[in-house]
């Protein structure tokens, strides 16, 4: 035997044989053996278990997320309104804004307040007057914003003697 013995392709030829049709009959032989040994078919737990495992982690996660969301929502709804910083608010409101606000709410003002308003200098048209009214205006209906000096005069004229005396 020489050293090249192993490298000859002839030696790689499979010297073993099997009975004819052995491989074709193998499957049935295995199943017969399984049956003879009383081996039960394994339950398909693996795939179900895997899916179950995922759900088992998913549900608490979702529940925790929902709980946190609910707590945040409740807190946002029920939290006390932030206390306004009066100084800052006052500084932020210009004289024009204040005047416009008074004019807008003139109908709700009492006579003393109206008198003060009347003494003010020429009213400045409120900023943002070009914006549409908060509700659709009805033609012919006097707008609160169109309260002019004449209107105030008329209001005063409508007052009784006693009311005027009380104001004065």
């Amino acid at each position, binding site marked *: 035997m*020489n*050293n090249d013995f*192993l490298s000859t392709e002839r*030696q*790689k030829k499979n010297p*073993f044989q099997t009975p004819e049709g052995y491989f074709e009959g193998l*499957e049935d032989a*295995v199943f017969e053996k399984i049956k003879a040994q009383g081996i039960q*078919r*394994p339950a398909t737990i693996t795939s179900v278990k895997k899916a179950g495992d995922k759900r088992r982690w998913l549900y608490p996660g979702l529940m925790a997320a929902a709980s946190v969301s609910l707590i945040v929502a409740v807190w946002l709804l029920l939290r006390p309104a932030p206390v306004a910083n009066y100084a800052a608010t006052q500084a932020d409101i210009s004289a024009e804004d204040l005047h416009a606000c008074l004019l807008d709410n003139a109908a709700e003002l009492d006579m003393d307040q109206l008198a003060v308003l009347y003494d003010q200098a020429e009213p400045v048209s409120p900023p943002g007057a070009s914006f549409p009214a908060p509700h659709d205006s009805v033609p012919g209906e006097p707008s609160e914003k169109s309260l002019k000096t004449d209107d105030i005069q008329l209001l005063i004229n409508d007052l009784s003697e006693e009311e005027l005396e009380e104001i004065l």
Partner: protein
Amino acid sequence: MQVRISPKTDIDEQILELLRSGPGFERGFRLLMQHYRERLYWHIRRLVLLHEDADDVLQNTFIKVYKGILQFEGKSKLYTWLYRIATNEALTYLQSKARHTATPLEEVCLVLSSTLKADQWFDGDEAQWQLQNAIARLPEKQKLVFNMRYYEEMPYEEMARVLDTSVGALKASFHHAVKKIETQLMSEP
């Protein structure tokens, strides 16, 4: 019963999908046997040498696979997992044979190789028989590595996964096995 195989999907995926589907379990298991029976048989046969023994070991391998296939997590290739089971079954078979006859494992392998000549399922000539005789004298691991590399031409990386060892160790084992076989064959008349 022949199971038709769709060429579009990976065969291992198809097998595992069927096995895990419940109703398709038997079909999946038949497909697994059809696909791997020959490769596993020859792997086992080269270790145990006789057809009857190889048949027993292969059937036991498939029964083990049947019982445990749903625990297969797909961390390795199905082929690698099956090879490991087949290898363990073959080695366990040889060891139990040695225990029953109260003879060392190496002795059992030599006896088996000597009976090959008379075996109706061995078709080799004198040179091939001598080669089988020389392989039978190798230590267990070297025998495995030599067969997987020389006959099955399995890449070292794949072999490393089956035998759970390093590529370097496998190369060294193969080198030692070849040297021993050459020495053994040269000593033959």
